[in-house]
Structures are given as C-alpha cells and as structure tokens.
C-alpha cells in the first residue's frame, strides 16, 4: 500500500519535473547568455513584465473591493457574481482572446470608442494587458476573497466600536491582517499573466511577449531557436515561486487565535 502510494507520487513528480528539467538543462545556459545579448528577448521580457504588472495592479485596485464584498456580504446575487468572476478560468484561452476581440475589437462599440482616444487593443500593449487581466484576474479575486474571509469579522466590528468607519476599519485592520494573502494572490496572478499565450496571440502577435516570442522562434526557426527563450521563461517563474514560499513561511498567528 505505502509502496504503491510512493510509486504514484514519484511518477507524478517525474511527469511534472522532467519536462521543466529537460528544458532548463538544454536551454538554460544559452538562455541566460541570450538574456544579455538578444535585444528582441530583452524587449519581450520588458513588455511581458510591464503588461503583467499593469494587469495585476489594475486587478488589485478593482478586485480587492470585489473580493471583500464577496467575502463579507451575503448578497442575493453573490454566488452568481462569484461564478461569473471565475468563468474565464474555464474558457480555453484562445476562446478568451476571441471573446475579447468581439467585446473590445475595432468593430465593437467599446473598441471603437477606445480606438477614438488612441487606445486600440489589437496589436498593442493595452491588448496584451487586457488579455492577461482577463485570464488571470479570477485567480486574484478568488484568493483575495479567501484571505479576507479568514480574517474574523469581529476584528473589524471591534474597530468600529472603537470609532472607525467601515472603510477605516477595513484599511486599519482587515487589509493588514489579510495582507500576506493578498500579496500572495497578486504574485500568483502576476505569474499566471506572465505565462499567458493563447488569449494574447489572438489579440496581439506584435509586439511580442516572451511566450509569443518562444512560439514564434519555434515555428520560424525550430526547437533549438525556441529553447533558450522558453528556458528563460521557466527560470523567471522561479522568482514568484520563491516569493510565495517566503510569504507562506512567514505566516503570522492571525488565523489561529483571536
């Protein structure tokens, strides 16, 4: 029994680790070298990081109040809102790109209005950010909702009896107590946004983000050309992973005892 469980675990670990390990071993060194000399890779990295950061910041700004409402208030439409927020997670990403194109492309009223003020989403960094936000914001909202829900409502209640308005109590008590979870949620969202390909490639092939650049080099020049770029993406994914682990390691006594 124990042997069978261990064997299953080893098999799964092999399935998860082997492809990533092979990629880093084959393309890692070359990828790090290209990071220094390859201008296109540098631009793609910069664009990816900037778009993912913008998408994450916008989501934190708009998604945190939504997460708070979903965690604290039993709204009649609460479960429907929650389901709608999570819907993009279940849509194949190229389909998400098509949906975004329909809603915000030049042919749509919203897209036409955006284009009139110089904010077209097709072939622009804005489109990349929008695609990243669409596919990864649900991860932030869900995790942020869990983080807020873990903070006992009574902390906030006590703060209000001590003279705080609701917003002030949220700012002084709930957000600091949920802070670690909110940062972790933002990091997960950022990492997911960085790795997005399917929705972005429908909206914006150029300028290229790293995932699109990796695909472009694979289709145009073959596996050897794509390997270093792909390996750089994997190596960069270690950064949010380390941040998440350090956040978990330093988790405070918040949820344990009032």
């Amino acid at each position: 029994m124990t042997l069978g469980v261990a064997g299953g675990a080893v098999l799964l670990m092999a399935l998860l680790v082997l492809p990533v390990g092979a990629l880093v071993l084959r393309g890692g060194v070359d990828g790090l070298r290209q990071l220094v000399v390859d201008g296109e890779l540098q631009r793609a990295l910069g664009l990816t990081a900037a778009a993912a950061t913008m998408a994450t910041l916008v989501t934190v700004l708009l998604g945190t109040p939504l997460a708070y409402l979903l965690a604290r208030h039993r709204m009649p439409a609460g479960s429907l809102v929650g389901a709608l927020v999570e819907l993009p997670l279940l849509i194949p990403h190229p389909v998400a790109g098509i949906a975004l194109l329909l809603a915000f492309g030049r042919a749509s009223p919203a897209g036409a209005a955006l284009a009139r003020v110089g904010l077209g989403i097709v072939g622009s960094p804005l489109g990349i950010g929008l695609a990243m936000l669409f596919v990864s914001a649900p991860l932030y909202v869900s995790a942020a909702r869990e983080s807020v829900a873990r903070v006992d409502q009574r902390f906030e209640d006590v703060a209000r009896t001590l003279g705080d308005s609701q917003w002030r109590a949220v700012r002084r008590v709930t957000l600091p107590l949920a802070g670690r979870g909110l940062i972790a949620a933002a990091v997960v969202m950022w990492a997911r946004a960085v790795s997005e390909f399917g929705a972005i490639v429908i909206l914006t092939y150029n300028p290229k983000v790293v995932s699109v650049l990796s695909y472009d080099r694979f289709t145009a020049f073959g596996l050897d050309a794509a390997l270093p770029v792909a390996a750089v993406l994997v190596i960069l994914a270690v950064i949010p992973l380390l941040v998440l682990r350090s956040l978990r390691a330093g988790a405070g006594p918040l949820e344990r005892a009032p």
Partner: protein
Amino acid sequence: MIALEQLSARAGSFELRDVTVSLPAGAWGIVLGPAGAGKTTLLETIAGVRRATRGRIMLRGKDATALPPESRGVGIVYQHGYLFPHLTVGENIEYGARDAGTARAISARLGADALTGRSVSSLSGGERQLVALARALAPNPGILLLDEPFAALDPRRRARVRAELRRMQRERGTTVLHVTHDFIEAGTLGDIAMVMENGALSQVGAPEALFRKPASGSIAEFLGMENVYSGTVQRLGVGGEPEIGTLRFSGDGIELIGVGDHPGGVGHAVVRGEDVVLARQQPSPSSARNALQGRILSVAADGVLARVTLEVGATTLVAIVTQGSAQELGLAAGEMVVASIKATAVHLC
C-alpha cells in the same frame, strides 16, 4: 441608559426575539442564560455590529437603531478579546483612545501597563482580556458591553480588576451590560439582572430577587437551584379557611406546602439547598410546614459546606449544610434523617 423596545435580530439561523428592557444610566446590568440563548447577539445588536430586524434601540435617550457602530458611543469586550494581532499591546489600547495619556492611565489602573510593549501573540488568555478591557475603556464610552470579560483571569486578578472596573464605572457614570456565567459576579456587580432563554428575555429584576424567586423551573435549574420539581399547585384555604394564602405542591414524588401568589395549576416548586434543615429526629414543635423523612444517599464535601443528597419518597432532595453540622449530626450514606423546610422557603412558579 439603554432602552430596548421589542428588539429582534438574526444571527444565521438564530433569532433574537422581542427583547424589551430598560437599564438606567450608570447602572450595571447582568445578562445570564445558557449557551446559545442569544446573549452575545444581544450585545452585538446594541453595539450596532449586527443589524436589528425589528424594534428600537434607545441609547442615552436617543434612537440609535439606525446609527453605525462608530456613532453609538458603545464599547464592547468579547470573551476572546479580539486584540489586533498586527499591533502591539500599547497600539491596541491606544487604537480608539482620544490621546495616548488616557490610554496609559487606564492601562495603569487595570494593571495592564506592564504589557504595553509586548506583542499580542505573547499574551496569556487573562492578559488578553485585560488589554481588551483597557482598549474598550480608552475612548471613554458612555455604554460598555462586556461578554464574559473576566473568564480567563486568575481569581486574584479577577477580583482586583472587577473592583477597579466597578470604581471606574461609578466615576464615569458608564452604563454597563455584562454577560456572565458567574453567579457570584452577577450578585456582587449587578444592579439589574436578566435571564435569556432561546433568544428571548425570560426574567428581569434585582439579582437577589432573581435568585430568590426564579420565574420558571428552567430558570431555577439554570441558576443552580438544588431542588426543582415539576407538578401541580393547589391553592388552599379558599373561602376563608385557616390555610388562607398557602399552596400545596404535588409532583415528582414529593408534596410541599408553600406560600405565594401562584394562581394554581401546572407549576414548579423550587427549594434552595441552604433552606433545607436536617435533623436526626422529627423536631417538635416546629414552625416548618414541611417535614420529610429521608435516607441519605451521599454526603459530598464542597469547601466548608457539605452537599447532602436524600432519598425522599420517590425523589431526591439536596440539603446544603456546614461541614461542622454534618459531623455533629453524624451524617453518612444510608442514615435516616428528617428534612424540614419552611413554607416561605418553597418558591412556587
């Protein structure tokens, strides 16, 4: 003052129902009741952190039903303290205080000043309660709601904090509503006591009256009355006979004569253990209207007192006597004794 008029509120599937009670300004009100009776829900509804579904909350003579918690001038202390774990003890106490000096003065009076530099996670349960109390008092609320605030304090500190809090409450004229399971606390602190059962108030009165004359059998049992019997009450002496004003109770295998204003019919007889007098033989003559012969089932020591359980007819009767009396009478299991109870000590409800 706190005046509640048919106050109702919901907490999940639990419902607080039609609570009507008035607590004068500067009074100390005690709320008693079994777990799940709605005591905390009542405090939270008064504080405004839980919405009233019906009725009115009057605080200091003004309708506060629709006011947000921060505008009510009400402080609340929960049993678990709910200290903010991301702040130090000092920052917790200063959280709602007008100035740091006031917070420091209150900390000193309650004996929490030595804790101010510490982190919340390093505090014991009793220290947390002390800090929570200081934090709630620091903004000088006109009304203070306490939900078992002394439960985790050791007996010596509990007595000191209780006395200091009572002094501060008198100095400031604070109106206090205090949930407790400690009957001694209820008796020593309370000006008014109320009992809650199943989300509703079942009795309100002076603490001693409540303990002397519980309004129902369930309240008597909750208040720890040793002998509570269910049965029927019959009015005696109707039509000018000598027994005017007396009542006969029969039920649970026991018959008792009592006095009071029970209308007759289904009811409960309540006898405090301290009101049962034990003798080896029938005391004669005696003014006690109830003399019951019984066999001792057990004698249990309880500090300086002894709890003697008798088998009387088909039921049991508990007497509380001093250890000295128990020894003088040679009370032991299996011995026969006579239990005397005055009619005035039999409360019928």
